[in-house]
């Protein structure tokens, strides 16, 4: 079910007169494909973004930054490049580690100094389908998103101009930029474009849940019950139990790009999107994050307040806090008539957690194509 951008048609019987033209064309094709393996073994050409058909094609690639193999390779080098920080010690990967689905396991993260980030690091998976970035969705594209950590005084703390200068002097980079952009000029714009190309390739589509949707995995009874609860509205009047998670976290990608207040606080310390909309009903509203690889991305929520999925389930089950911004999807949703929180049974929480564990994609966190290219050879995702 993989979507391919290139199609090879088998050569069929050709009319005699056209044979020669085909031969000439073939010659050119072979000559051109030779170019595909230019300098230091970096493959070039259009990058094949392969993903399952059920993910849909509402993907987000700006017209001025098409995804190429050489661009993705450069972006991957830059993602793991500490020279992009003022202290030469911090790269994107400090706070976005592959083995943790590109989070860092901390409530708040440390950059070049002692001042921690104000929100928790986010998982980077299936960003190809995202349109708004950060916990409050304030960045409208990966390219502008990348400029923020690069230049934030406490994260990487270096102007794009200095980054460009440093890279111009670093061995290998001028040639790579030439391979990607046609000339050796290194600019901030070219840096963030390449990083974004790499981020778009971070596709996670091989969890047990994907395999279940593909009819190649049979869930356990516990996973099945958890999935049912996850997807159902509680209706105590007619005896249907549910956890209503899919309203906000549903869909095959486990991500829907919604912004909600999920009842963490009655007076939110961090106002979320209300900081720029100024509306009382937006207080404490944050991006509904992806649940893909959720078992690997603790601690949870924008401030990393919950250490385990058990704590998350306890929150939804017993501790929803009323406020002006609280989502209507969490108001009066309960398995008890008249209840204000879900009121799940102990074993139901365990079933939901079993389902959440189905969303872990071990291929994604071990794929060498996403790892530091200095540690692993130049390699592309084979699919």
């Amino acid at each position, binding site marked *: 079910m993989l979507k391919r951008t290139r199609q090879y048609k088998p050569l069929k019987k050709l009319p005699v007169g056209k044979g020669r033209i085909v031969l000439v064309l073939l010659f050119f094709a072979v000559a051109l494909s030779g170019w595909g393996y230019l300098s230091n073994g970096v493959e070039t050409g259009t990058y094949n973004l392969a993903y399952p058909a059920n993910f849909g094609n509402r993907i987000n690639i700006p017209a001025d930054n098409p995804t190429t193999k050489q661009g993705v390779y450069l972006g991957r080098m830059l993602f793991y490049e500490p020279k992009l920080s003022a202290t030469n010690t911090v790269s994107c990967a400090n706070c976005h580690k592959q083995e943790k689905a590109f989070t860092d396991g901390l409530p708040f993260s440390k950059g070049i100094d002692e001042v921690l980030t*104000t929100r928790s690091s986010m998982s980077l998976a299936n960003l190809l389908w995202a349109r*708004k970035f*950060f916990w*409050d*969705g*304030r*960045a409208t594209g990966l390219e*502008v998103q990348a*400029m*923020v950590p690069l*230049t*934030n*005084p406490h994260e990487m*703390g270096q*102007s*794009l*101009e200095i980054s*460009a200068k440093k890279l111009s002097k670093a061995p290998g980079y001028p040639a790579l930029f030439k391979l990607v952009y046609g000339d050796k000029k290194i*600019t*901030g*714009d070219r840096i963030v474009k390449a990083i974004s190309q790499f981020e778009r390739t971070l596709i996670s589509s091989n969890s047990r849940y994907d395999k279940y949707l593909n009819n190649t995995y049979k869930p356990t009874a516990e996973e099945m019950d958890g999935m049912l609860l996850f997807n159902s509205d509680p209706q105590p009047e007619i005896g249907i139990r549910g956890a209503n998670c899919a309203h906000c976290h549903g869909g095959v990608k486990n991500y829907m*790009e*919604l*912004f*909600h207040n999920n009842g963490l606080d009655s007076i939110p310390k*961090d*106002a979320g999107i*209300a*900081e*720029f*909309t*100024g*509306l*009382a*009903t*937006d*207080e404490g*509203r944050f991006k509904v994050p992806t649940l893909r690889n959720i078992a690997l991305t603790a601690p949870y929520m924008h401030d990393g307040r919950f250490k385990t999925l058990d704590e998350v389930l306890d929150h939804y089950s017993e501790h929803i806090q009323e406020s*002006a911004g*609280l*989502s*209507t999807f969490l*108001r009066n949703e309960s398995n008890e008539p008249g209840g204000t929180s879900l009121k799940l049974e102990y074993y139901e929480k365990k079933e939901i957690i079993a389902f959440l564990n189905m969303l872990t994609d071990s291929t994604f966190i071990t794929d060498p194509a996403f790892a530091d290219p200095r540690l692993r050879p130049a390699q592309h995702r084979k699919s």
Partner: protein
Amino acid sequence: MPIRVCDLLSIEKVNTTIPMKKQFIVAFIALISFTTPFITRAQTAEKQATIKVSGEVTTPLTIDAAYLQKFTPTTVVRKDRDGNDHTYTGVTVAEILKSAGVTLGPELKGENLTKYLAVEASDGYQVIFALAELDKAFTDRAIILATTVDGKSLAPGDGPYRIIVQDEKKPARCIKQVTAMSVHFIK
């Protein structure tokens, strides 16, 4: 904590290699990202929600309660999730779009029939309507932008503006907390 001057200065230094237009975007995003923790929450309380009308329009609009006053109110009765009838009052969506210069009425023919209205809510949820679904010459089914239910303002989680689609069985397109309406051609 005040915004420190050095934070602002570093924004200027950052962007010397990027084209002008991008500089503003970067400066804006950087500014937001540096200052968000410092903005006091007192500012957030009183602001009123509005709806942006954009896309294939001759006059882009920003609609608020006062703007809606100039239209004749329309009423639609619809069953809610609770199974009971509720009376919604508001303005026909087509009237609002006409005031923005959208091709409805006699102009809704030919390629204009390939246009749709995308409606977005404050949580990012989106639904679409073909323009023909909204036009009286095509259908008697009313689609309104409601502001009241059973004579009262909509609940904060539903309003202040909600689309109500007469007789539609599922409530999924009765989109709540509407913040934007835009008209587009299919690609």
